[in-house]
């Protein structure tokens, strides 16, 4: 049964939620989620690229020859990544600094290339856009959630965006941040436990 437009969109939020269901695109998930803001920023940047490349690949799919399709995908994706890079430098410079090397690395994020190959090259433009947006938003939420958990425990406070923030010490005055969480090993372990949690709910 072919999926409706809405279903193509919503599947990215649970059924195929990256990086939990599709275990792809792990590097940024681990690398930038020291805070919620970083996670969301990274997610939005990836969503932009995902949406754009899905749209363009799907649009051009009748023109792109089978043999050089990967090369074409890469050029398209890399162009969108560069655009994001430049735009972020111009308008959200502090975030750009924090995300560092992971912005150019969107180009090799398996999710983006994976969707181009597995979905956009085979489906109509509208569906591809829904797919890209859904997967992108799912990814953004996952990154944001992981960032929130790590920041809350590791820093004692969460900055959602800009000035909107919550400080754990307002509820537990003597809480000392568990900074293991914002360090490298904490990233892996936290993601592993979240994956366990999601698996347990899924069953």
């Amino acid at each position: 049964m072919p999926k409706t437009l809405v279903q193509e969109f919503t599947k990215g939020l649970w059924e195929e939620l990256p990086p939990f269901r599709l275990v792809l695109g792990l590097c940024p998930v681990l690398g930038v989620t020291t805070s919620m803001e970083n996670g969301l920023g990274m997610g939005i940047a990836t969503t932009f690229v995902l949406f754009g490349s899905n749209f363009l690949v799907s649009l051009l799919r009748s023109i792109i020859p089978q043999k050089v399709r990967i090369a074409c995908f890469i050029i398209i994706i890399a162009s969108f990544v560069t655009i994001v890079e430049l735009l972020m430098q111009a308008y959200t410079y502090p975030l750009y600094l924090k995300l560092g090397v992971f912005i150019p690395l969107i180009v090799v994020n398996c999710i983006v290339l994976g969707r181009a190959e597995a979905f956009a090259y085979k489906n109509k433009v509208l569906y591809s856009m829904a797919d890209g947006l859904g997967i992108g938003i799912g990814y953004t939420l996952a990154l944001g959630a992981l960032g929130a958990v790590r920041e809350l425990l590791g820093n004692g406070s969460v900055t959602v965006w800009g000035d909107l923030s919550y400080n754990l010490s307002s509820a537990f005055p003597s809480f000392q941040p568990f900074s293991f969480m914002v360090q490298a090993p904490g990233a892996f372990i936290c993601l592993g436990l979240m994956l366990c949690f999601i698996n347990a709910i899924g069953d």
Partner: protein
Amino acid sequence: MGYFELIIACIFVNNILLAQFLGNCPFLGTSKKMETAVGMGMAVIFVLVLAGTITWVIYTFILVKFGLVYLRTIAFIVVIASLVQFVEMFLKKSIPALYAGLGIFLPLITTNCAVMGVCVLNIDKEFTFLQALVASFFYAVGFALALILFAGLRERILLARVPKPLQDTSIALITAGMISLAFFAFQGMV
């Protein structure tokens, strides 16, 4: 920073996988068996040395010269993708034995953050050519080392009675975290 420090830093202190979080998909994907881990490790070393140096040359002598620095991402990924293709074809024809060993891992490398990441880091850290060469090689050695050690643990974990929701990727991530913790041993050694 002398070359000795650079080497220690690349392999241990700033390990590409465990400290910089680059190349995690192949790290989790090819570590279930020791054999595949060794194969992937070797393939990454091979490609990374080529990619790291070639992108350095292209960046320094083409992009910078002609003011095209903003095309870095697109240029690098095209170089890496074609390089992998080329290496694959070359090995298939000239060294079939090596191809048989590394062949299946090569395509995985195109979308491996570690390769792209090291190329970008070489530029960001303003390395000289020789430094870029050494760093690329030893970052890749660090990748291979972490991968092989991880595979050793994972072979055992696969046989253990891990609770259902934790099985496979979840426990692998947690173990990876512990390896990353163990690598803190080398903090401050350079």
